[in-house]
């Protein structure tokens, strides 16, 4: 006799298609072993009698005011746009380590000083600094950021955007005034930053930093005529120009990064069972 073991869970959950449902039913009537199995799967939910309504009362008492609703009605209209982004930005500001602000600022100030003598210096420094700082804040793994994100209903995508925007604006404000070739520098910075963001989301900050440095080096090599085959060089140069394509590529990479931020596999703890 073949036992329909594979169909038992769906049978118990009631999700098995009708014809297979009746096949399993007939089998269970004559097979004590499978009937026991089915009862065992059913018992999975049998002990799960939920707590009574007191748990709702406890939840309401632990935090008496919801984030919205308790606020006066008129602030709902006037404050709506800022009520989510501002507290989010403030909270993220507390979570971003101070080194993420200080080291890019130092590099950019230095770049500004050097570009008094070598005008193109800042246009070379800014994209790399921007990419490296974005790689640091776009990493989805480090505690406590990931813990906080998982503990709140705020979308991880919103958190990612908020962190990246804050760092990008900061770096551009510090670095852009001293960059000569602002259009070219900005296009290159956008592509490199978006690439670093995507890599950081998918593979972590370290990988993103390596990718950013290698890719940036390829551009410098093309600039210096170090890439021999001419067509390859032409592609590299075209990609780094400040044309609409450059920004389109950057935008596309950023969109993919944001989309990827919301799709993470379940986190696996080091222990699968209950601590006993």
């Amino acid at each position, binding site marked *: 006799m073949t036992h329909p073991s594979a169909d038992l869970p769906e049978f118990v959950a009631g999700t098995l298609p009708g014809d297979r449902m009746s096949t399993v039913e007939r089998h269970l009537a004559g097979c004590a072993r499978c009937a026991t199995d089915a009862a065992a799967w059913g018992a999975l939910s*049998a002990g799960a009698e939920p707590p009574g309504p007191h748990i709702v009362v406890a939840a309401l008492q*632990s935090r008496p005011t919801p984030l919205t609703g308790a606020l006066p009605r008129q602030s709902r209209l006037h404050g709506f746009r800022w009520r989510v982004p501002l507290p989010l930005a403030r909270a993220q500001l507390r979570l971003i380590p101070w080194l993420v602000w200080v080291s890019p600022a130092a590099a950019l100030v230095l770049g500004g000083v050097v570009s008094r003598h070598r005008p193109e210096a800042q246009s070379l420094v800014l994209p790399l600094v921007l990419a490296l700082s974005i790689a640091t804040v776009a990493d989805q793994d480090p505690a406590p950021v990931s813990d906080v994100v998982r503990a709140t*209903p705020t979308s991880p995508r919103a958190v990612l955007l908020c962190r990246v925007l804050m760092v990008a604006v900061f770096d551009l404000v510090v670095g852009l005034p001293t960059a000569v070739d602002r259009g070219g520098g900005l296009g290159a910075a956008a592509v490199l930053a978006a690439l670093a963001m995507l890599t950081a989301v998918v593979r972590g900050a370290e990988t993103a930093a390596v990718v950013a440095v290698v890719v940036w080096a390829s551009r410098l090599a093309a600039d210096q005529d170090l890439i021999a085959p001419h067509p390859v060089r032409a592609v590299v140069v075209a990609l780094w120009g400040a044309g609409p394509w450059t920004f389109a590529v950057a935008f596309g990479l950023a969109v993919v990064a944001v989309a990827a931020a919301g799709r993470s596999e379940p*986190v696996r*703890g080091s222990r*699968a*069972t*209950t601590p006993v």
Partner: protein
Amino acid sequence: MMGAMPRAAGIEPHDSAVLAAVAAGDGAALGELYRRHGRALFGYLLRMSGDRMVAEEILQDTLVAVWRGAAGFEARASVRTWLFGIARRQALQRLRKRSAPAPAEIVDRADAAPGPEELAVLASGGTAVAAAVGRLPDHHREVVALAMVAGLPLAEVAGILGISVGTVKSRLFNARAAVVRLLAAEEDR
């Protein structure tokens, strides 16, 4: 019993209306939401944590998060999917903390208590299958908890976990095979 939760599609519009009332600060609406989905949520959390006390704590944290975050519901998914998403975040956060070294008081109590296997069986509802499910890796236990205990359709399980329905099916299949192996190993001893 499985499927005690109403699953008809007709109930969903009411859910979003109830959630809107929660967002407006109506505590009774939170109670109504709990009446509708509490059983499925608790079943899921109980299987995920393997411990009734922990599951109740995570459930309460979930309700607090729902109460505070109801206005953030964007109707991209059903209310139930959204609720399970919040419960899952709370559970992952709590269960990750737990993989730190066990606190001393648990070690103290273990002296007079029965052996670990026996306790695992008790903690997971007293059945060998539940105990075996409790020993599965997190990603397998999670699909079992969502599909078998909470009784969600596989498409919704896929939505909550952010994976494809095919992956849900293969994980369920592997989880089942692992449970059977665990039970067989238990019988052999």
